[in-house]
């Protein structure tokens, strides 16, 4: 009996082995995620392209916020109610450790954005088969324009904001060795230039030229900057925006807005200038109220407010800067006053570098560009000491960029 029992059970078990495979494989599929390869189809191009644009939105607002925090435009003060992130305080002081997890947020967002753009280009080149009809052509155009334009912008972000050392701009791509800002800018311009062949409209092409103009400006090539600015956004053009929704909040609103104010803005913006709307930020209890007032930006009063990424006014100021460089004050005034007029401001009578810097400071408010101007023009890096009545001190830290994160340093053996 024992032998029969063992034999029969053994037979049953052996027979059940195959059934076990079936049992565990027969599971219901998830509903909130899809395998990457499933998106290698023409019908998914809009979904993929929108993902790239969302990558841009995610990268832009957080980078602009942190950049302004490091500059003298934004500040962190734990006397302001709701200001609690020590990592913001470190950025404000320029004392930024590579493991600062607020910088992780910005760097990861830029890197994923870069990946999404490059991966869309890979799909367009290698895996998606486009139909020969108009629908297929439009899908391929959208894929290529989106991938090339945003691939360029992502490299612009890396070159402009990230650094290996406090003053050495640049970043790796896909675990490469460190790529200095100048090389990243060159790659960016190349991709942006290619994207123009797939632009859907003149407006799109002007947006591309505007970004190229800004890159040349940051590299100190004012002539090229002015040329591209001239072909960039023109008066009346809408800005190119970072767009947000209640599900994907504007970071300036979330961290420096009416809901929670961790990043305040310098009191110099509270002068009634229409370009820099501000509101009072609440003081924490205790003696903080007496040390105020504190100001927050009031441009983005809802979570879905869009943030201008590039504007025709900026193009006008780039052209003004180039004119000033050529000692053409009259020409510079013309450009600058055109921009001012769009905000209802009176014309300026004179224009020099200080005026230019001030105009850029206000016109480009909250766009993360003050930091670059401080670097370009050699301005002092200062900060307002928290829990004082506005005492300004030199920035104690050495960082003038956001550091490549500890995660990158750990996992990238080529750095």
């Amino acid at each position, binding site marked *: 009996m024992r032998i029969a029992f063992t034999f029969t059970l053994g037979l049953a078990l052996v027979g059940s*082995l195959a059934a076990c495979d079936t049992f565990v494989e027969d599971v219901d599929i*998830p509903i909130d995620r899809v395998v990457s390869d499933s998106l290698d189809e023409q019908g998914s191009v809009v979904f993929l392209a929108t993902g790239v644009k969302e990558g841009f939105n995610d990268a832009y607002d957080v980078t602009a916020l942190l950049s302004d925090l490091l500059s003298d435009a934004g500040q962190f003060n734990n006397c302001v109610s709701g200001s609690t992130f020590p990592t913001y305080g470190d950025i404000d002081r320029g004392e930024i450790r*590579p493991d600062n997890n607020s910088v992780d947020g910005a760097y990861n967002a830029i890197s994923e954005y870069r990946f999404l753009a490059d991966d869309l280009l890979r799909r367009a080149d290698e895996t998606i088969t486009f139909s020969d009809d108009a629908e297929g052509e439009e899908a391929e155009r959208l894929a290529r324009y989106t991938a090339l334009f945003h691939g360029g912008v992502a490299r612009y972000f890396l070159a402009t904001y990230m650094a290996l050392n406090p003053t050495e701009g640049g970043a790796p791509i896909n675990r490469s060795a460190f790529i200095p800002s100048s090389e990243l800018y060159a790659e960016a311009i190349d991709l942006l230039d290619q994207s123009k062949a797939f632009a859907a409209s003149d407006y799109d092409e002007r947006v591309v030229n505007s970004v190229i103009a800004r890159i040349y400006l940051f590299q100190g090539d004012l002539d090229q900057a002015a040329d591209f600015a001239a072909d960039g956004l023109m008066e009346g053009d809408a800005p190119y925006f970072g767009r947000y929704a209640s599900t994907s909040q504007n970071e300036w609103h979330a961290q420096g807005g009416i809901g929670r104010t961790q990043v305040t803005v310098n009191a110099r913006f509270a002068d009634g200038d229409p370009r820099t709307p501000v509101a009072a930020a609440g003081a924490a209890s205790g003696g903080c109220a007496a040390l105020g007032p504190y100001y927050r930006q009031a441009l983005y009063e809802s979570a879905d407010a869009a943030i201008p990424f590039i504007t025709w006014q900026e193009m006008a100021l780039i052209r003004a800067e180039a004119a000033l460089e050529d000692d053409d004050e009259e020409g510079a005034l013309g450009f600058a006053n055109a921009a001012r007029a769009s905000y209802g401001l009176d014309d300026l009578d004179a224009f020099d570098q200080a005026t230019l810097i001030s105009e850029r400071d206000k016109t480009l408010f909250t766009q993360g560009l003050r930091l670059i101007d401080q670097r370009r023009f050699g301005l002092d890096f200062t900060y307002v000491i928290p829990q004082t009545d506005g005492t300004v001190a030199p920035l104690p830290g050495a960082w003038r960029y956001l550091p490549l994160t500890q995660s990158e340093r*750990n996992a990238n053996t080529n750095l």
Partner: protein
Amino acid sequence: MRIPTLRGTGASLLRSLGLFGMLAVLLAASPALAQSATVSGQIIDAETGDALIGATVTVPGTNRGAATDLDGNYSFALAPGAYTLRASFIGYEAEEIQVTLSAGQTLVQNFGLAPDLTGLETVVVTGALSSRSRSRSEVAVSSVDAAALTETTPYQDVAQLLNGKIAGVSVQPASGNVGGGVRFNVRAGGGLNGSGQPLIFIDGVRVNTSEVDGLGAGGQGVGALSDINPDDIANVEVLKGPAAAALYGTDASNGVVLITTQKGTIGSSTNGEQPLRIDYQGVAGANTQQFEYDELTAGATAANANAIFEDGEIQQHTLSLSGGSNTVRYFTQFDTRSEDGIVFGNYQDRRSMRANFEAFPLTTLQIGANAAYSFNTVGQPQNDNNVLGYLGNTLLFPFPYAFTDSAAVRAIDTRYRSNRFIGSVNARYAPLQNLSLSANVGIDALDNRGDQTFPPNFAYSGTNNGNRLVYTRENDQVSFQLDGRYRFEPTDAFTTTTAVGVQGFDQRIRTFTFSVQDLPSRFLQDTGTGADFQGSGEFFGNVRQIGLLAEQSFDYDDTFFGAIGVRNDYASTLGTEAPSIVYPTARAAVRLDQFDAVPGLFSILKLRAAYGESGQLPGTFDGIPLLYAAEVGGDGSGAVPLSIGNEEVEPERVGEFETGLDIEFADRLGVELTYYRQQARQSIFDVEQAPSTGLVASNIPFNVGRIDGQGVELAINATPYATRTASVDLGAIVNYQTNEVKELGFDELGNPNPPLFDGFDLNVIRPGICPSDPTLGPDNCPTDLTDGLPRAAFYTTPVNGALFDDAGNYAGVDAGIRPDNIADFQDRLDSGECELNPDTGESRCFMGIPYPEFNGSFNANVRVGGFTFYALADWATGLSVFNNTDLFRSDFGNYQQRNDLADQLFGYTDEDGNEVPGLTPGTDEYREVADAYARTSGAYDANFIREADYIKLREISVKYNLAGLIARTPGLERVRSASLSFAARNVWQSSKYDGLDPEVNFAGGRSLSRGQDFLTLQNPRVYYVTLQLGI
């Protein structure tokens, strides 16, 4: 309440088990007894002479036997022949006797059983296919007599019931929230993967033990175990590692907890007429603040912090009915418990009902059904890492409610409701002598709904005029086991048992969230009234596992015991090809007391050894290379990466060897000593990718990890004095456990993968390093790698003291290892306790571990007259806690210690407006104070990692048995039992920790963050008064 369909599972199951089912039918034939004899008699307590109701007499190796009735009598038929009769009863030592029966004979055989004072005769489950008495077990198995404990102490949950009572296991509450999450610490922690938690079965049903956290209240979740009523439980057995639990397969590497609920018992013998037992237990109690804040722990706001606490009322009523006959038994219980925590908004209201049935329609067939339903509501307060919490608003700043107004904090409503059904059916059939077949199928269907409301017209950070968040979670899991066992006796002394089985598991989980803001009125809580949509989302996951298991065991001469076994596991999470994995086990024990050379005082002296393997499955989607989800933003719905997997990922494999001694000395002293060694290989380590790859959605799982652990467990229990009217029982548990992360793999260049840190960059998983350059792998390292660190060790930049400028003024914190101080750290650098990255200059050092190196407990139970006194104390040493509360208090100016040092250092203005100068820079006193000041800086975590050894008087109780009083009271003849008891929990503590409660963790009971006290609610002190009545 939804009862999920079994259709999907059942269809696959039938396909899987077709042959097994045919086998069961094949073996269903059963020969009849002919010309039988009868054996009958009575079983009594040998010391008191009382009849033992429900004791059993069996014939080992057969399916014959019977249970005793109300008078302790039994009777059953046997074919003529020679037999061994075995009489047994829980809490008594079994007795065996040889008898020979002839046709038509009626043999009267009485038994007098001696109490089993050391518990070594208790039959316990020793594996998925085996059970033995502890005196014969080849593995260490701990058991807890839950029914006896809950008679006097109305535990809030299963975790409280178990803590301090099991060698090698502690159960740690994540916070003082009633209904909150817990963490089981089992032995050295098993492998690196999974939640580190044991599998828990209730009456054979694998139950969900998740910590549900869909709403967010700063870090704490709701423990799924809080739905389970401890009063339902009769007994808990714990298999503590793969050596014992291997045949439970994947996910059992952290042990298996087997909970058996109460079964029907035959009615009272007091009046001899009542077949039904009715028991009532009523409890009144209170949760109270255990520790008061003072200037050292709360700075200027101690009074504000203390003001948030209030006494929380506890009420519980339990009514149970049980009874039956020799053929049918039933147990039903209704329980309601309402309980307020120690801060407003924390409460639990649980109602549960249980019905268990057993039937014995044939002498060869036993069937049973267990069903429990609970409805539980848990309210959570805001605390922990949170600007909306009570503690965050009363501890951080030197003034209260800096972040959020007190009325606004109090107005937040966060609650979880759960409906839970746990049910199973089981059958045991013995178609042939020596052959038994059993089956158990069960369901754990748990529905959670979470509601969180921030009412309008209050100011909440990040909230636009109120917020409503709704979260639902449906978790349905079906588990089943079918097995067959055949016992064979080639000789009188040699017995073998062959057992085979199949065990399966099917889990489906679905979640849904929906959130809106801008609410019109605090009286409307319909999400449809919110004007500002915030987001919604759904998740669905389906995981299946199945294992085929077989075991061959043997007994020789009641002296040698052994078994070998194997399990072949399949799971749906193992990459795309569903590969299987095989886990072996082998075990042996020898009863040395059976040898003449061993003194007779050793009633049991057993040496045992066992080896087994188990592991943890990969995550649900770990085997899929790249998954995209939709992100909805300003440009619409776009594709973004969600998780990055690895097709080749396999389960972790954890091997454990254990050996030990079980001793019973003079029937009064029991000792269980166990040494174990665990080695986890192929641990899945989620390797962080360089963000420049763009693959930042998740880390990528690789089977590259390895961790070793070992430890010693010692459990002693003694009954130095026992008479019919009085007894003294003493117990002690001592555990030592340690572990070391050995390997996390290497990148393609041979360099080590970077360590894994928790979200606060403090707890680390780090292997040994190259001491000269931690960035080098073993192939490139000029010396040997150092030892690895323990799992989740605190690992951060060391603080050396203060920096001074040329004039001797304080100039900041001197932290880290640099060329000018490297000599001070050389020994620790050489040993790997510290590391210095030569490229970045970053340095870190080991600062302690967030779980104890040694821990244990003492208990005493004294019975005298009608009184029973009980006390349990537990302790832990080698434990560190990160006091992040103090770090943030330092940052926000409410750390009095730092403020006092600042006054000394820099001077201050006194109450009369006089300037009091600071110390003179350059002096020794200045330097000393400056160093101390630097060590209070919130910029460095190292300043706030504290030793946290503790000893706690965890439980005390006194119970008075009213039986004597009742017996003398006319009219109460029908009252079978009555008692009145008082109990208290968390009565007293002595600790090195400078915070309040060294047991809490701000991130709940499952995170890599461990031992981090960050504005976390202390555990309450609890008082209970209990009245018990039985008729």
